[in-house]
């Protein structure tokens, strides 16, 4: 497979494009996904004015037309619910919830419908849908456009939750999510869109529920996802200069979760730090630590540590927001506090 | 000649009178449904082409959605302003194209804007406004059938039209506006929300029609001395400070005691000079001109209005002639 360097944004676009070419039942809808393509002066030329707020869908409307790339009114309940209905009757919809914070408007359709149909109907329904959504702080977008919130979805049985950190992972995981027969919440950190990485041109999938060790080490394990993978790798680099070798485990999906990789790593390093951009209560951080406490307590040489955002909404002012987001320094000092 | 022009006003029936009176709501979906029936009737009569004014609310497109028609429905090419300029421009184009007749959906204001440019083309006016005198409450199907017969010249329509009266408003000797029913001097300084509903803010009224069975300014006159569309007269009424009051329905469900000082009849061609003042002039129920005390305002009653189809008489004649009758052998 020929690979070349593309951005995270392009990788996601490419996964959708290739899956849509491969399978005519894959459709995409959400607010401004065709981006003004419905306007009379745009018609015929199949142009688009936006391709989404941050341009992730550029080129999809022109290629697949308006029957497969649909703008929606600002009616999240209706169109997320429509994805559930369409998925359980034969399509593989990708519904785009622009910012994850908007989940509040449509939570019932995800939580009571999408997540539960298969179980409630005794296995007679499948809901092969993907909800793609932007997450994360650092964009100066304030409290209602900056959450991570993946922990909330991880709490819900029936949903799969995926948080990619690299272009390569994003493409492979999204393809897998689209082909998966369960509802998948796919989270894209908005500050990762511009990062670049090697990505094969062809279609490939990365199984959901497989973590990846992004850096090997022996002194401590950092378990993390999304943008925090990059922070953790940067911290690992700094720690290596001081002779501390940390292992960085990128979970990639939170549901299903790759417990084996976490446990294997902790058994090797005997120390665990979880770096999580989400709020701390009932979260990815507490979940991973609970697993380790439950199944690998005897291997631990130190208390597990969690580095998370504080238990507050995301503030607007740049200095406050930077203070809110877990920092590379805090990772370095936390690891040092028990390897030191 | 055998084409029909359609002008449907998306804005009619939505003004402030829903707040300040008890006006009915004419929702745009209903306008589209009426248009649908109009189209089906026209199509049944074999009219090959219908031209229509585009509008931002897409009334006609909605009406045509899913309809299987033999006729061709074409939208006029024109710049849109989303106000009455659109209506006048559409009427001008219809006139240039010499369509067989124009169907209007709207109120008095809509027809006034059509009348500015439609010349001799007969109008079938369907009421979809608030309190209208000019257009009639007529079923769309029936209006469409009449228009179809007129366009196809099945029965000569000219004999069943009447020429409406027209009031011409001159500001400093320039014709600034026309009206088909009434010209009203309102003491408000700004056009604002346009509608009139408070007789205390009305000073003078010039009427082309004074109809006691209508709502609005026309009725104030109508209760003093009725004048129908074909009477060759108009009326001037001065309100305030007089000794005659009339109990008039000035708006839907809004009945007020209106204090009148004097009234007099006007004959065709006669002019009234309005009292100078800073005020607004309303035409056919809508404040339209903001005028100043130094300006000289004259209103002239003429018979230069549009030609209006009397649908009922026309269809009776069509029946008498058996135009839609076929004897099966």
């Amino acid at each position: 497979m020929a690979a070349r360097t593309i951005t995270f944004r392009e990788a996601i676009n490419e996964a959708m494009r290739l899956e849509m070419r491969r399978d005519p039942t894959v459709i995409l809808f959400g607010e401004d996904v065709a981006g003004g393509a419905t306007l009379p002066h745009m018609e015929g030329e199949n142009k688009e004015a936006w391709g989404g707020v941050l341009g992730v869908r550029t080129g999809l409307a022109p290629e697949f037309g308006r029957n497969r790339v649909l703008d929606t009114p600002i009616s999240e309940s209706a169109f997320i619910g429509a994805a559930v209905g369409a998925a359980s009757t034969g399509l593989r919809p990708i519904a785009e919830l622009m910012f994850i914070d908007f989940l509040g408007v449509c939570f019932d359709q995800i939580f009571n419908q999408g997540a539960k149909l298969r179980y409630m109907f005794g296995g007679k329904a499948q809901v092969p849908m993907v909800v793609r959504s932007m997450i994360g702080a650092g964009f100066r977008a304030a409290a209602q456009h900056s959450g991570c919130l993946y922990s909330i979805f991880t709490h819900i049985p029936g949903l799969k939750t995926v948080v990619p950190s690299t272009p390569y992972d994003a493409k492979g995981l999204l393809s897998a999510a689209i082909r998966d027969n369960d509802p998948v919440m796919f989270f894209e950190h908005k500050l990762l869109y511009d990062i670049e990485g090697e990505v094969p041109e062809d279609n490939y999938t990365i199984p959901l529920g497989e973590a990846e060790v992004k850096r090997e080490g022996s002194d401590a394990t950092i378990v993390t996802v999304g943008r925090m993978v990059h922070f953790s790798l940067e911290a690992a680099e700094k720690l290596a200069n001081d002779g501390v070798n940390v292992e960085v485990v990128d979970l990639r999906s939170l549901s299903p979760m790759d417990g084996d990789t976490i446990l294997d790593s902790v058994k090797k390093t005997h120390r665990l730090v979880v770096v999580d951009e989400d709020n701390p209560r009932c979260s990815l951080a507490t979940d991973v630590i609970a697993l380790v406490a439950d199944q690998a307590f005897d291997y631990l040489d130190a208390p597990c540590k969690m580095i998370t955002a504080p238990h507050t909404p995301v503030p607007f002012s740049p200095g406050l927001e930077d203070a809110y987001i877990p920092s590379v320094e805090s990772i370095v000092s936390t690891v040092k506090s028990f390897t030191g | 000649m055998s084409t029909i022009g359609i002008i449907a006003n998306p804005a009619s029936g939505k003004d402030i009178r829903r707040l300040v009176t008890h006006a009915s709501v004419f929702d745009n979906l209903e306008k589209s449904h009426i248009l649908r029936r109009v189209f089906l009737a026209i199509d049944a009569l074999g009219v090959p082409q219908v031209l229509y004014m585009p509008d931002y609310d897409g009334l006609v497109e909605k009406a045509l959605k899913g309809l299987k028609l033999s006729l061709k429905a074409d939208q006029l090419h024109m710049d849109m302003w989303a106000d009455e300029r659109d209506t006048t421009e559409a009427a001008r184009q219809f006139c240039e194209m010499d369509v067989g007749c124009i169907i209007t959906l709207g109120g008095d204001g809509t027809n006034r804007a059509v009348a500015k440019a439609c010349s001799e083309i007969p109008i079938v006016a369907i009421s979809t406004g608030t309190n209208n005198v000019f257009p009639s409450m007529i079923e769309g199907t029936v209006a469409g059938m009449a228009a179809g017969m007129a366009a196809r010249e099945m029965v000569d329509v000219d004999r069943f039209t009447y020429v409406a009266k027209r009031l011409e408003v001159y500001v400093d000797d320039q014709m600034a506006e026309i009206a088909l029913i009434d010209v009203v001097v309102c003491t408000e300084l700004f056009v604002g929300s346009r509608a009139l509903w408070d007789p205390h803010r009305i000073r003078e009224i010039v009427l082309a029609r004074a109809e006691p069975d209508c709502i609005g300014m026309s009725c104030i006159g109508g209760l003093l001395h009725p004048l129908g569309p074909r009477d060759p007269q108009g009326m001037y009424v001065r309100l305030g400070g007089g000794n005659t009051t009339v109990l008039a329905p000035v708006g839907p469900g809004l009945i007020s005691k209106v204090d009148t000082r004097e009234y007099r009849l006007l004959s065709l061609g006669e002019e009234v000079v309005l009292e100078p003042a800073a005020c607004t002039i309303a035409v056919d129920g809508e404040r339209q001109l903001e005028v100043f005390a130094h300006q000289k305002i004259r209103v002239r009653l003429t018979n230069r209005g549009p030609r209006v189809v009397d649908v009922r008489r026309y269809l009776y004649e069509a029946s008498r002639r058996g135009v839609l009758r076929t004897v099966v052998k």
Partner: protein
Amino acid sequence: MSLTKEKMLEAYATMKKIRLFEEKVAGLFAEGKLPGFVHLYAGEEAIATGVCAHLSERDYITSTHRGHGHCIAKGVDINSMMAEVYGKATGACKGKGGSMHIADVDKGMLGANGIVGAGGPLACGSGLMAKTLGTDQVTVCFFGDGAAEQGTMHEAMNLACCWILPVVFVCENNGYAESTPWGYHCAAKNIADRGVAYDMPGVTVDGTDFFAIYETAEEAIGRARRGEGPSLIECRGFRYYGHFEGDAMLYVTEEEKKRNRARDPIENFKKRATERGLLSEEQIAELDSKVAAIIEEAFKFAEKSAWPENKEVLTDVYVNYP
């Protein structure tokens, strides 16, 4: 229409403040001085101004992501607004909310809002307060054409009518929800018509005509104040700037932009008010320079204000985590 000379002066100053504030913000944003994104209200000044002219400080409004105009019209301090857009400690929300969340509850401004359609239910709440406590306070809910499609707005309009609340719903139909045209996202292509569905009057007005809005809002707010229930006013207009700053507005044709420029609400107001002799050219010029100074002062205030201290991250919220 209860329009006095004083009211007109005030209205002009308010509209001008909104325009200059937005122009200043656009400039600062282009210079890279402002964090995040900003949604500008320029072009829609007549709506907030014409409506809020009938409200006192005790009345409430709910707003949208495009909230600067509503704030100014409701009397929120301009210095604190500019500082908030910067994220400074002196901001209306101590820099914690930013452009999309400017609020001043003391002035009856229940916040710009990042969630489209969220204002409707909040407005029902403050309406319910007024009704329950028997005050004559009115709440105005501003919302966009895009927001009109949100379930929350439908639910709120229905609830307000069920409970006969003193709420006026003002839809600012500027033709677009981000890049999606109103003709696409609104199936029935008319928002005022929806009043019928909830049993309230629905009126459409020209959203660029201050006088029309002022007169209509006066009647609707009066109706609400008298306890006669909610109304819906759809104001049709446009926005001059993109959805947010940085949006190149490819979805709007040049002709449309030109047509909009010809309908400028402030120019229109100025022309008619001066022709009438109610405002003089001198008064306008004086106000223009006064307003320009106010905006410049706000800019300087924001620039020289301090950033919030980091400990602010943990205040104004119940934090219970060891």
